[in-house]
């Protein structure tokens, strides 16, 4: 509930429109309120007294009031809709930006589906609340208070009955709402669970098929489906009981009012001298009671909105309150170009509370140097490289670029100049060209082909029917593993980096293609500092220096030839991959 109120700060910008809209709504509601009074006048003073003129006059009055009320209602509705959509627009934008301000560490915490739901449906729930809930709450309050006042002016006795009944009705609603709220929250959770199973099943379709786990998957899904069914049925049952109940309360109240009012009218007729009410007054009362009950019904429905919106607001704040683990400091250094010197000074890093992935690592890399990194699985090669563009921050020590701590740079100057090809190459659905232009929208076709050539990707792109315009699917469906890797490399080259990091992205390439890619890059980008992580001697051997990592530390370093002489890990790897295999046949 509190978070919902806190969210209202997103309405600040629309205060003007909102207040104006509420005023208009107030006026329009007042205009609808005078309708019963006019009907009463027609009945009491027109029809009963047989006054034709009065009937016509007030009949016209009713129409006129309705026209005004409708017009004003239009205006008020428009302003409200505009404000609520404006707020949703701002809120979605804020959330999206927030997600993009997250570092990898934050992102590790959330699942894609969760983020999607928050930016999409949770914001929509809030918007619907502002649009409908607000409208309804204000309209109902005005109507309730207004009709109570009008009733009071016509008969204080009856009005006081209403004044007792209506608050008690409200209390009933509040009780109901508190009962329903947790069920709503639970339903959202169940829906999330259902979606997660679905999403994973589809994303891992080939695994499911390969392992013939269809039956298990169906079972897993059906458990979630059943769970959702049960909670949904529960809510449905509650609603089908409670909504008519609200209506019932309204109707019974009305009947009671008429009954009590009628009894007094009869008393007044039968026993002269007893103060009573007229039939017209009774009808008027009946109308007001109906008018007052209707908004109470509305309030009941609003409570639904409130519970849903409160749940959504909580989830939204979970995102908004998440602090990006990596931020720019004030007055961060901005540079168009980096020289490309990198230094690790006693750098240590770990994920959460696990073991050190990089431990006390020190090393200097000169601008334009070509570095190869090789080492056992899980040695911390990727983790080490992540520290350079600040995907993660060191826990101890520091990482320097051009002699300055990476923390002192603005994130954009770092990342603009560093191209990191991630181990899992992600492409977007779209054409090959769109995928490339993504990093450098101004690149000419010539430049595209140059980058593709360098990444040894030009050949297979040319074989595709539409060449650059060939459409590829989600995550690069329609390409072979090695083709995806080469496209990702081409994309990185196209961004004209000062530091280029290839994280094991030649693993699916045959040795010949791999050599061509690497030799080509070395030759065409002499000034660029290049770091190549690989498990293949073939990929690292031509580097100026090769680092052998193990357990987060640098175990050996040197050129290919130097490392072979040391007869350490590198030599061992070499043996398994080259000498032994070829048997120097």
């Amino acid at each position, binding site marked *: 509930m509190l978070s919902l109120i806190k969210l209202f700060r997103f309405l600040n910008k629309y205060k003007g429109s909102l207040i104006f809209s509420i005023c208009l709504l107030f006026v329009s509601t007042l205009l609808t309120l005078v309708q019963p009074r006019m009907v009463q006048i027609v009945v009491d003073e027109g029809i009963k007294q*047989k006054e034709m003129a009065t009937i016509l006059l007030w009949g016209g009055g009713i129409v006129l009031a309705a026209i005004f009320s409708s017009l004003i209602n239009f205006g008020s*509705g428009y302003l409200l809709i505009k404000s609520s959509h404006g707020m949703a627009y701002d809120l979605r934008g804020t959330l999206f930006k927030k997600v993009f301000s997250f570092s990898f560490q934050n992102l590790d915490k959330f699942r894609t589906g969760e983020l999607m739901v928050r930016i999409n449906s949770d914001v929509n729930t809030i918007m619907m609340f502002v649009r409908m809930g607000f409208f309804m709450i204000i309209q109902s309050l005005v109507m309730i208070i207004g009709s109570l006042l009008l009733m009071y002016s016509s008969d204080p006795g009856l009005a006081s009955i209403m004044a007792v009944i209506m608050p008690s009705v409200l209390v009933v609603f509040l009780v109901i709402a508190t009962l329903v709220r947790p069920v709503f929250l639970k339903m959202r959770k169940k829906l999330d669970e259902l979606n997660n199973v679905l999403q994973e099943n589809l994303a891992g379709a080939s695994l499911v098929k390969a392992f013939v786990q269809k039956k298990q998957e169906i079972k897993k*899904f059906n458990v979630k489906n059943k769970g959702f069914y049960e909670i949904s049925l529960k809510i449905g049952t509650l609603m089908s009981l409670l909504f008519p109940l609200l209506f019932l309360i309204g109707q019974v109240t009305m009947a009671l009012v008429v009954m009590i009012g009628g009894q007094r009218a009869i008393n007044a007729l039968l026993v002269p001298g007893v103060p009573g009410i007229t039939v017209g007054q009774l009808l008027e009362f009946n109308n007001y009671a109906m008018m007052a009950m209707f908004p109470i019904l509305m309030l009941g429905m609003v409570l639904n909105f409130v519970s849903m919106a409160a749940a959504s607001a909580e989830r939204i704040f979970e995102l908004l309150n998440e602090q990006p683990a990596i931020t720019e400091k004030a007055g961060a250094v901005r540079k168009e170009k980096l020289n490309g010197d990198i230094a690790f000074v006693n750098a240590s890093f770990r994920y959460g509370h696990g073991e050190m992935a990089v431990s006390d690592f020190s090393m200097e890399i000169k601008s334009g140097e070509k570095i190869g990194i090789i080492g056992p*699985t899980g040695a911390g090669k990727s983790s080490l490289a992540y520290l350079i563009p600040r995907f993660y921050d060191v826990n101890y020590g520091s990482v320097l670029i051009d002699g300055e701590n990476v923390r002192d740079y603005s994130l954009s100057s770092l990342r603009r100049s560093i191209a990191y090809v991630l181990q899992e190459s*992600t492409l977007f659905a779209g054409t090959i060209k769109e995928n490339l232009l993504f990093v450098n929208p101004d690149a000419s076709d010539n430049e595209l082909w140059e980058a593709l050539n360098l990444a040894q990707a030009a050949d297979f792109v040319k074989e595709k029917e539409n060449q650059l315009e060939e459409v590829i699917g989600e995550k690069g469906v329609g390409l072979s593993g090695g083709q995806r890797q080469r496209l990702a490399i081409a994309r990185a080259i196209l961004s004209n980096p000062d530091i280029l990091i290839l994280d094991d992205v030649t693993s699916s390439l045959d040795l010949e293609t791999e050599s061509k890619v690497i030799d080509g890059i070395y030759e065409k980008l002499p000034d660029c500092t290049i770091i190549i992580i690989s498990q293949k001697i073939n990929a690292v051997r031509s580097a100026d220096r090769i680092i052998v990592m193990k357990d987060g530390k640098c175990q050996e370093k040197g050129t290919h030839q130097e490392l072979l002489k040391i007869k350490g890990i590198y030599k061992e790897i070499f043996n398994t991959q080259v000498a032994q295999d*070829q048997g120097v046949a």
Partner: protein
Amino acid sequence: MSENRSNSRPIGQGMGRGPGHHASFEKAKDSKRAFKGLLSYIGQRKIIILIASFFLMGSVILKALTPAMIGDAIDLYIIKNPSLDQFTLQMSLVIVLLLISWGVEAIGGFLIIRLSNQIIFKLRENSFAHIQGLSMGYFNRTGIGDLISRMTNDMEMIYNAMSNGISSIVNGIFTMISILIAMFIRSWSLTLIVLAILPVLLFLTSLIGKLVKDAFQKNQKAVGALSGHIQESITGIKVIQSFNKEEKTIDDFNQKNNDVRRIGIRSQFLSHAFMPIMFLATALSLALLITFGGVLAIYFPAVFSIGLITSFIIYAQRFFEPIRQMTNIYNIFQSALAGAERVFEVLETKAEIKSSLESKNIKNFRGDVEFKDVHFWYEENKPVLENVGFFIEAGKNIAIVGPTGAGKTTIINLLTRFYDIQKGEISIDGVNIKDMDLDYLRNQMGIVLQEPFFFATTIMENLKYGRPAASDEEVFEAAKLAEAHNFIRRLPEGYNTQLSERGMNLSQGERQLLAIARVILKDPKILILDEATSSIDSLTEVHIQKALLSLMKNRTSFIIAHRLSTIKNAHKVVVVHDKHIIEEGTHQSLMNAKGFYYRLYSLQFQKSEITEDMSI
């Protein structure tokens, strides 16, 4: 209908364009089929709808009676001959009837809600089971986002229409009819006055209704485009951040977000317009009623009593409410029908690849695998494999090598029947795989895919995926063989470590080790490793190699790898290049032949280097 039917759009939909949110209103035939499909789901339960309608109708009639009774009470017992007892009795009766009508309505409403929930439950269950049977080609064409939106959003639309729609319509129609009847019985002339406004109202609402429908359609499209963009950007957020393209992504987002706002305001405003218009209509009809009714009451007081007019005032107010509700329902039904179309499109998609009807299982499975003159394309007229043939004896292993993009993974896709060949034959122990039971076929195989997938659950559960009944000890054993045990044990929670989405909190090599352990645990007859060790360091690989060698003993194995160390011990090597198998033999014979294979693997290292190294 074949799977190709839904292939009206190319793979993917362009950057950021949402997965399949094109509401397809245009095909009336499809709507009809979707509607019929829904009806078939209601099937046996039609009787429930009848019973529920009966209850709802009862409540409507009871509710319609009450204003008349109140009017009577005022007329008869206050105005004509005042009687406290009679009046009180009549009013108490009204309250009792209201109570009964609540009970009746609640029962009817509950029946409908339960029915809708049951139907959506069944529909979801069937759709999911059906999707499990569809082939990889279908998933790649349709896209995951699109399928998810069919299983969630579209289902929700159908649910809304059923749960609100049915009762609202029954309610609305019966309310209107019963009020109409009640009014007619009391006075046809006053009834006509109340109805006078109706033609104008219907005209106006149908006009706005059309606008609203258009606007909502546009709105759905805009919302779809936006959510597609969000989905894609979040999936690729690490790439976006690594290229510092947050700003561009956010700009694109803002543009789509703005579309949603603009179109959203329009559609909401249009549908909001119903409210004041209905209010206006009610007021007009009330004014007409009062004026004419007043005149009639003055000149024919015997026929048009004040009580009569009073009750008509109440009727008039009630009469228009269901009309307003039903205009709302119209929108809901439109969306539901569009949703049902998309759902039934999935349900009616025939599986391209399925078990043959008289599927033969092999009695004594040996594992001889033969490809005979196999031709295959993913997309028509773009052949990927031509004339591919080879034979591998049971228990032997075969290495498939070749440059990237040659079609190695494709060969595996064919053997597992992820895709079916267009020409030729693939057989195991002499039986065409198309004649085998699909599950049986795949159960014989253990595959490590080029890009391993994991579920966001514990490592233990992921390892047991192929054999849920395996004991923990067996899991440890498999993990040890795959050299995964050591790194798992070092994790803070060991085997109970929770993996994040797709196992991204492990290193790439660690993921591959897990995938190998998973297959070892499955203990398949045919083993398939598609670059299963590409990111694993050579030293670890040597160890796994040993495990794999003992694993491969006596089972047919397919190995795809670029590193020589992985393939040199294979019984047979086939070289795939340019759609064909161009060389075949053992490592030694191929090296000696000095052909393509030789070039692929020997030219990498100068002799000098190797000899120099050897001399050390």
